């Protein structure tokens, strides 16, 4: 019987050396000795390399960001939101192509829209403001917002004459309302009395669909 094989097997099953010693009716010292010896043998020396190299792919490592066109706006406090984004190669390529300018030279601008109770189509926000982004930025904390409002964020660039050009558009997100903000709420009344089929407020989660744009 090969002792070390049994020890390795038990070890792989998550047992401690002490447990193994008990189970195998051996002293802990003896188990430890065998185990250490085994581990030393496992350290490969050069001449022991297998003749047939095993093709093991390099481990996948967590990237800084993903190469995908994506922007997501998240609730945070009554006066702040958080947004992060990334671009796909094709978005970058299209911007470069449309403006005939290198990606790195295109200004990076964030535009915030207050779209509270609006079916937003790109031009009808209550208010907007723009933030010039430092280079290499892929996320932003939006501060000093108004409580109880719905916002959308665009990540974009500028045209030669200074207009904002949208590259990515976020989901809408809400800042929480102020304390004791209202004693009546028509939206909840309409919902309660089943006057509307769908709630008239933002329900945070996107029903993400992979084939969303295929009908």
């Amino acid at each position, binding site marked *: 019987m090969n002792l070390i094989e049994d020890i390795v097997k038990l070890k*792989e099953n998550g047992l401690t050396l002490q447990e193994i010693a008990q189970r195998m009716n051996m002293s802990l010292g003896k188990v430890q000795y065998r185990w250490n010896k085994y581990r030393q043998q496992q350290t490969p020396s050069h001449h022991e390399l297998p003749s047939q190299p095993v093709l093991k792919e390099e481990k996948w490592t967590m990237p800084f960001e993903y190469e995908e066109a994506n922007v997501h706006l998240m609730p945070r406090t009554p006066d702040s939101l958080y947004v992060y984004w990334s671009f796909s190669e094709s978005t970058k390529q299209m911007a470069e192509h449309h403006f005939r300018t290198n990606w790195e030279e295109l200004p990076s601008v964030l535009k915030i829209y207050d779209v509270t109770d609006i079916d937003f189509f790109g031009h009808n926000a209550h208010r907007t403001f723009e933030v010039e982004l430092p280079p290499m930025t892929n996320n932003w904390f939006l501060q000093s917002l108004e409580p109880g409002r719905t916002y959308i964020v665009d990540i974009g660039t500028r045209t030669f004459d200074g207009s904002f050009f949208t*590259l990515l558009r976020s989901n809408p997100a809400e800042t929480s309302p102020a304390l004791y903000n*209202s004693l009546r709420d028509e939206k909840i009344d309409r919902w*309660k009395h089943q006057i509307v089929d769908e709630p008239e407020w933002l329900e*945070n989660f996107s029903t993400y669909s992979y084939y969303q744009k295929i009908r």
Partner: protein
Amino acid sequence: MSNGYFSLVLHAHLPYVRHKEANRLEERWVFEALTETYIPLLWVLEDQPEALSWTLSFSPPLLELLNDPVIQKRYLEHLDLTIKLVKKEKKHSSNTEEEKIIGFYEERYKRIMETYQEFDCKVTDAFKRYMKLGKVNCITSSATHAFLPYVQTEQGVKAQIFAGVQTFEKYFGEKPKGFWLPECAYSPGVDIALADAGIQFTFVDEETLLRSKPVPSKGIGAPVYSPHGVALFSRNQCISETIWNSSVGYPGDFDYREFYRDVAYERDNEYIKSFIHPEGIRVDTGLKYWRITGKTENKDWYQREWALNKVQSHAYDFCHRITEYLHTNEQSYPPQLITAPFDAELFGHWWFEGPEFLLQTMKVSTEQNITWITPQEFITKHYQDLETVRPCFSTWGRNQTGEVWLNESNAWMYRHLHHCERKLVQLAARLSHDEPNIVVERYADQMVREWMLAASSDWAFIIEGNSAAEYAKSRFQEHIERFHELDRSIENKTYHPNEIAEFENQYPFMLTNDLWHFFKNKHDEYVASHYSERKADKKKILMLSWEFPPMVVGGLARHVFDLSRKLVEQGSEVYVITSSVPGYPEHEVNNGVHVYRVVGKQPNFESFFHWTGSLNMAITEQALALANKIDFDCIHAHDWLVSVSALAIKKELNIPLITTIHATEHGRNNGITSPLQYEINQKEWELMDGSDHLIVCSDYMKNELTGVFSIPEQKVTILPNGIDPDQITFKSSPSIERNHDDHELLLFSVGRLVKEKGFQTIIEAADILRNSGKHIKFVIAGKGPLMDELKEMIRQKSLEDYVHLAGFVSDEERNEYFAKADAALFPSHYEPFGIVALEGMAAGKLTIVSDTGGLREIIDHEKTGLKVYPNDPESIVWAIEYIIRNRERCQDIAKNGEEIARTVFSWDSIAEKTAELYLTKQNQTSKVGGNV
């Protein structure tokens, strides 16, 4: 007798810290919590007064840990070791005070061991038994204690909630009625999934109600319903604070046990080394001999009796506060309810005497008739007395906001988590219609587990707080990386039962099947089944054109429509992406052609050039989304307006791009002069350069491409534009009156009113003809920027009776004009092809065109039509006189023209040739090493 209710809620949770290898420091969190909290809580249940019940939530990771045989075995071993240490301490001690405390621990550990073994190491079974006795109501939380508002997708939220409920059911044999929202984090929409999972109640923070719309009339004095009908019980901060607040709360009393002093740090290395971590790291043994004593480092011995006395007085004080509060805030109806939720580990682990305090409070409450109620009992009694409000996002963390779980230190985590969620939806969309494969499904389930384990709110919390931050970061990263390793194995088809077994064994968390089903989406399933039925051998063409009927600006729309439906008729699948038209659907199947109408993100962009840029982004987005399911064989683009998207899609999908150049900016303007023209010219050149092949409609255009743009000749194929005679046949009865007496001839022209169409030449010719006494009537149909200028010309020359600008005409009206006219006239200066001329011919009318561009190639002078010099009114006058002189001959010419138009220029033959071209290009591209 109190006028209200008190409800105690404890939430027990630990992140999933089970590691395959033994002696991980984090595993001790489980041991400590068992020794100090979970087992002592069982003692509370054993002794608590009858007819009193409270609520205890077990998070699914904790349930999994407590029921894990390896953890159970290791805990027994840990207890053995501690008991061994107690014995050694007893032998070693020479101080009577110390011996007394050691004696206390000796007793205590004996009892812990007994309790643990009494239930066969299954602590949850013990709680289950007390639940059956009605002493406690157990509930659960989300699968891995994810901070639900920061989950991105509805599917992700569902998975977290439903898998949590399933896990609870596995250990308790019934579904929970209540649910602990991790970190009391609520956001609108969470309640939909909770309600779907059969949850009746959950817990939120005070501010959640106070920021609701409307603010409930009882404030926090009663629970409320969320919009989707889940009862929300709000934490009473004022009452809770007396316990958890570190400066004013009870646990800081000087007589209570000091948490931070442990014998592990007080003994010699040699003495203690076999009782601490094998690598010599000093970790708490659980033997703590000191009391808090005061704000001093010199601690006194822990006196158990003193501590128990304090427990007694604190319990009285707490009950007094409850009574006071209920009295001061008396309300009806329902009566005032105090809900006091806490982390369970506060009692015992952080506050050693906490469980004794709870038991004592229960006893005093019974004495003083304070009514304890569980949320479940409360709902049964008062379900009709609750208001419905609309609560917003909030938590029980700092400032009641999300800032603890989302700040500069941990915000980076969410893009990874959300990426995983979307990947899972994508995977589920594919798996739900693929051939079932058990191994792949195991991979998918494991990917769900890895995402869940990474999504635990603990990691963001720990990273924010900086203690054990390295562990939290590495665990998070590990699960994200494992997720992608699994994904890659599926992608590369290298999946293997051995590999997946290894992954499952590493973290044997929630090893139930079908977790990936939570990520399905009805629409995706529909698409998956619907689109797989299509014939695989059909060519799939992605057609890009900024205009498509009903949006008709020039001839392009009609051309793309006719070509597309002919291609479909001949057996291809065609997907047209074009700009949206108000009132028209985003998707329709028109004559078998799939039409997707998209809108840019800035549809009112003032600059037309940037408007097209914005449109192109939308076109590409749509095209790449379609490509998720449809394997396109090639792209067919039309004109510069789709240049940006055409090239981006080609690069992304790596398929041939064939472009039809209908006209060029250079040709339209007879050169490039303005900056905008220059930009357009660039786009045209880039598109021509980036396309695999080009189609033009005439020799004339081919010359322009090879000449002006230096495009190699072999890259250009001439395919004329086609017409569909049916489209120009006049069917209904006449509505346009025609009086033969008032003029000799009626000539009809149609086209966009732009300079290059040469309509001004008609007016000049009409002037000459009128002056020579002939009554010839010209009708010009169409609209465009030149409208006002042409009107003005007619007015100045007083030609109102001779030249009529008909404005926009419908197809029907156009056909009627063709039918009534004696001839059709197209005097363009620049015309790459001239589809209208073909229409005139096909309508059986004598057609007069300028001897220029594509028009020149369509018509054989005096055989199939007449040619005039462009920009030369005298030449038009000549043609009129020719008609008057040769009426009969002209009829023959018209007949010949009709014959040619209906055969040579039929869409049947053109579409066939186009399809052949697709095939050639596809074969060529694939021959070049797959064109990777």
